[in-house]
């Protein structure tokens, strides 16, 4: 186990180093200049060059990269060019709450909708309920989340007035009020992600339901639901957990479209706005942290297999 964890740790460091390097190079190779954006449309080339120099953007790429790496080794992701020069880590910490909460709401919704739907669909294969479930799941998987978000916003917020349209609450808003702002985007994100869980649950269960031990259980006279829930579903948990884990990891990296549509100040929104304004330190820092979260969640999922499947050994 220790050796397994050790190997995973080494792999994680290698992944992070690669992410840091690729991100650093890519964001500086793409065109666009934060100095020009900060100074506005009427800035002259001389003004822009002066600001570039102040920000250290006129240094060679190699010098900038070495500075970036040495800062990184000291745990310093640098300071934002735009957001008042704040440290990137602090900015990410501020954005963590909305993203983590949105992810949790979405994953709960996705599991609450996706797993029962998949079970019902599998248990009544070929029935109207199965066809309806599969169709709805396909529809949700195909619907662009920005469209679904705007449609929900128009119906639930503008027409019914049940939820705020966007944002993360007023200054000093209580936790529950902040969660009210996340309810609608959480629902949208959950529904979109439930489609994959539904289809995965259905497919996995259908495979298992044709296994010999299920036939044996049925032959013993067990009812259909006990067969599905006690025997089939428990064995389907490992692949379902894999999908849920991957979804969780992706969402923790920031649900870019949903956060943008609902104007939630989360990590996804931060990445988009930072790319648009070429805030290099924030882009680099965010992607590094997102990659770290992704790797850690995957590790956690792999370890969770130990709990739900005694056959798994590391």
């Amino acid at each position, binding site marked *: 186990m220790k050796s397994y964890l050790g190997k995973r740790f080494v792999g994680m460091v290698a992944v992070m180093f690669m992410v840091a390097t690729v991100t650093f190079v890519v964001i500086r190779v793409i065109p666009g200049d934060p100095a020009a954006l900060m100074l506005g449309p*009427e800035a*002259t080339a001389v*003004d822009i060059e002066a600001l570039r120099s102040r920000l250290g953007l006129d240094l060679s790429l190699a010098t900038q990269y070495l500075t970036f790496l040495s800062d990184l080794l000291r745990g310093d992701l640098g300071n934002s060019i735009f957001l008042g020069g704040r440290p990137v880590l602090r900015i990410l910490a501020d954005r963590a709450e909305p993203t983590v909460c949105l992810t949790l709401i979405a994953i709960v919704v996705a599991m609450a909708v996706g797993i029962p739907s998949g079970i019902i669909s599998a248990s009544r294969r070929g029935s109207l309920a199965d066809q309806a479930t599969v169709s709805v799941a396909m529809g949700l998987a195909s619907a662009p989340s920005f469209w679904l978000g705007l449609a929900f916003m*128009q119906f639930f917020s503008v027409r019914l007035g049940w939820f705020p349209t966007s944002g993360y609450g007023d200054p000093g808003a209580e936790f529950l009020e902040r969660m009210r702002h996340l309810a609608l985007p959480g629902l949208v994100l959950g529904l979109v992600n439930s489609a994959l869980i539904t289809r995965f649950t259905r497919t996995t269960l259908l495979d298992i339901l044709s296994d010999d031990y299920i036939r044996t259980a049925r032959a013993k006279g067990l009812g259909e639901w006990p067969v599905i829930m006690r025997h089939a579903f428990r064995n389907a948990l490992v692949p379902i957990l894999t999908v849920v884990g991957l979804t969780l990891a992706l969402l923790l990296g920031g649900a870019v479209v949903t956060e943008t549509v609902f104007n939630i100040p989360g990590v996804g929104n931060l990445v988009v706005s930072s790319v*648009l304004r070429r805030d290099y330190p924030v882009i680099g820092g965010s992607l590094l942290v997102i990659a770290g979260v992704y790797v850690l969640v995957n590790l956690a999922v792999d370890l969770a297999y130990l709990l739900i499947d005694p056959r798994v050994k590391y």
Partner: protein
Amino acid sequence: MKIKTLLLVLFLSLAWLSPLTKAAAGEWKAGGIINVATIGEPPTLDPSVSTADVVAVISQHFFETLFAFGEGFSVKPLLAEKMPSITPDGLNYAIQLRQGVKFHNGKEMTAADAAASVRRWLKVAVRGKQIADSVKEVAAEGKYTVRITLATPYTPLLALLAMPTSMAIIIPEELTEGDLKEYVGTGVYKFVEHQPDRYVRVVRNDAYQPHPDPADLYAGKRTAYADEIRFIPVPSPNTRLEGGLSGQYQYADQLPIENYSRLLGQANVQPVMTAPYGWPMIFLNCREGMMANLKIRQAVQAALSQEDMLAVAFGEPEYYQVDGSMYPKGYFYHNERGLELYNQADPVKARELLGEAGYTGGTLRILTSMQYEFHFKMAQVAAENLREAGFNVDMNVVDWATLTQQRNDPKLWDIYFTHSPFVPDPYLNNFFNDGYPGWWVDSRKTELANKFNSEPDLRKRALILEDIQQLWYEEAANIKIGNFNLLGALAKNVKGYIPSSWPSFWNVAVE
């Protein structure tokens, strides 16, 4: 269509006049919060260093300038007590400050603060730096007089000191060195908090000393009716619209114009239109490539159908005007010189000009961005116009950040699309700047510009501008597409709001 236009004009007129009279009568109660959905996060809160409109919109609530614009871009005193006394040679400006004006830190504003602030503006501001070489000295004379001494006469000085972008803010002298870290001004609202990508909060400045003159757009008496204003960055226009419709935002800025009809007939929200707001334009690369050839620039000018470009970009004619003048009708500087070269849509003439120029089929590279959808739509129409005239056209569609960088390199483009609000002084138009991407350098332009800038008589300036406009058309270095309106969504319980280029929320109340 005409009835709709008349109703629109009537609506706008009533919306414009009613708040002025009510504000003057002081009928509104203080209190409430105004949530303003802005187009995005401000890149900085120091309005001197940036010319971005969103920075000006927010910061003008806590920073003030010596002068401000009234209706029709007339320069009026704000922190200055009255208009300055200027020596007949136009070289000395004595600016008398209002007494008893306090900064948000409680300190009284004096000439030492104002002089240091103007010196800082000349050093750090994009617009300030443009004229720094013309300024000999900025000095405090006594406690309440600032004297600006110029090396050469420069008539746009007061307009520059009144501009909300690249703003000549007046701050305490001790904050004028280095980067601005504290946002301490004299404004009608006080800066409280900035949560990046969430909001900028300002609260009423109870110690505010308003100018005694009646309210006049950005000038005159300013009253903070709302307790607090929150500027919330909402980059998605659809989200701004839905937030406005649901009542979450009392004002949603810069909405896609096609949403006008959706805002009509709503119970709690109304459309507000800044008409006209500004002008989309094309810059041609006079420094390198095929556009350095005047005949080819003129061929581009002849080929374009501005009317089609505007129709495709903005839809209904209520949302734009096919107008080639540098300033729209009704503006002091409006004139019609050179307009025979506007909206020609003449591919035959363009082909002839291309023949005269010896065009051999080189690729004309259009640089444009989809971040401003109307730029992209106009570029598509322009590309078709130009192909019809015989150009070989290539569209390079990039994000705005890329465009702002690539346009600085004359090797990368032939024409690019941008836009600008109408600026208070014609000299603030970018094409006057030889170094601005487009690089229109012309001794006749320089001569006319110098004459224009040293002429104190407004009527004579207007005549000089007619010559400039004629030259501008003949040289086709910068092509105007037309005028366009700006749409916002305003909650019906908000009173006193006046549509303008840089939305302001003093003299605005929530009922």
